[in-house]
């Protein structure tokens, strides 16, 4: 039985990922800032200049409220999915609780997220409405997103050991979700009968909540928060048990 320190070991793995990624990248952090800014510029050009008639207030900021959580979600989900195959040596040779591996891979994307959230908040302060008390919700929302992605990473990393195409499924799903999450359009133009469904997608819910807080200065609806919490923790619990069951035969399939 492994009696180590879960938090410390996870931190060591996160630091490892982080050091490896940024040691080999001269522009390092700068990329984290550049990518969402370029996306924001492109979407702003298309939906403000090419297709005028867009009535969303603070359109570039609203887009950024979509891009930042979506970027984190899609990259962390994809990295999490391939994490076990990337660490075959650990899975096959070191008796360490294997849940740590996908979870550490999600957390190592958090630095990226932190930088982008910083960028978002700075731009909102510079060009958007003023800071308000509802900003206190922000840490809760980001935490819920991380919980949700950890759950997904547990499920998909384990499935990916048995069915190596899982990675391609995740890539395609990410492409589709970019359109289904209100990244570049507002929630209000979604026909009413689809809205309920939208709210069960944690990433869409998160985008809405961010716009409520940062651009409209009001707290997100409690129904939205409760759905977000339910789905996030539900995914984590399901992921934990799926992983526990599937990991029994990792040794044979890796």
């Amino acid at each position, binding site marked *: 039985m492994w009696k180590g320190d879960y938090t410390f070991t996870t931190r*060591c793995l996160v630091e490892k990922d982080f050091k490896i990624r940024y040691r080999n990248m001269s522009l390092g952090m700068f990329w984290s800032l550049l990518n969402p800014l370029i996306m924001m510029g492109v979407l702003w050009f298309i939906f403000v200049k090419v297709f005028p008639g867009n009535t969303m207030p603070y359109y570039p900021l609203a887009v950024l409220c979509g891009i930042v959580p979506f970027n984190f979600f899609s990259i962390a989900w994809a990295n999490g999915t391939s994490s076990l195959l990337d660490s075959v040596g650990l899975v096959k040779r070191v008796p360490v609780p294997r849940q740590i591996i996908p979870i550490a891979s999600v957390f190592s994307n958090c630095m990226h997220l932190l930088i982008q959230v910083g960028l978002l908040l700075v731009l909102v302060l510079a060009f958007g409405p003023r800071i308000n008390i509802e900003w206190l919700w922000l840490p809760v929302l980001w935490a819920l997103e991380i919980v949700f992605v950890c759950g997904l990473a547990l499920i998909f990393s384990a499935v990916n050991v048995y069915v190596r195409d899982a990675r391609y499924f995740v890539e395609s799903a990410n492409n589709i979700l970019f359109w289904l999450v209100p990244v570049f359009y507002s929630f209000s133009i979604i026909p009413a009968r689809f809205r309920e469904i939208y709210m069960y997608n944690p990433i869409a819910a998160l985008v809405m909540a961010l716009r409520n807080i940062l651009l409209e200065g009001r707290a997100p609806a409690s129904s939205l928060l409760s759905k977000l919490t339910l789905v996030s923790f539900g995914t984590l619990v399901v992921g934990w048990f799926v992983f526990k069951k599937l990991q029994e035969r990792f040794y044979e399939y890796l």
Partner: protein
Amino acid sequence: MSLIEFDHVTKTFPHAAGRVLLRTHLLRWFSSEKHTLFYALKNISFTMERGECLGIVGRNGAGKSTLLGMVAGLAKPNGGRVRVNGRVGALLELGSGFHPDLSGAENLVLNASLLGIGKKRIAELFDQIVEFSGVADFINEPLRTFSSGMSLRLAFSVAIHTEPDLLLIDEILGVGDSAFQAKCADALESYRRRGGSLLFVSHSGATVRKMCDRAIWLDHGELMMEGNPDAVLKEYEGTSEAVAAAAQPT
């Protein structure tokens, strides 16, 4: 309570493992053809007591590494029962869990934490581990600049300093120069004097004869013989020579 109990343990591997795409699963689903299983271990029973040093010998593919993997809790038996009562330190492959882009010191901390050592204990042990490994001059260099002998020394040094109840070693002690080998032997000796147990896989009869109290000979997943190292090795080496002689063109 024994340290290790194997009770009629069987371990199988699916033959298609490794090439697992959705297509593989679908084909298997639709075809009536039964997929064949490979038996890595067949109905193995043995026990190992605390303080013992048990050697496992056998040719390639005999199931030695699978057996170690099961003791470490990395693989579950398909039949029978495996019980291990104690903290296992595994040294199954040269620097598993090491990353070439991290420095020696970073790898040391990471590896120790993966072996289940807390942050405080690692800080206490750090100097000792570096000192023992003899790579102090390079400890802040990236691991890819280390020779394989140096990596091994660091890996061994971490494993032996984490003071496990049971140390698993998979035929890696042959690496490193003779001075370090002697140092390893001394370290293992004093580890055993402190009550540590050792489960040891090797091709080399000499090492097993020198270190082990008892040996097990595996062949094609079956337990051929168990007992005194000299007796087991005599049988094993006799068969190997016969096989080698048979394979020689006359």
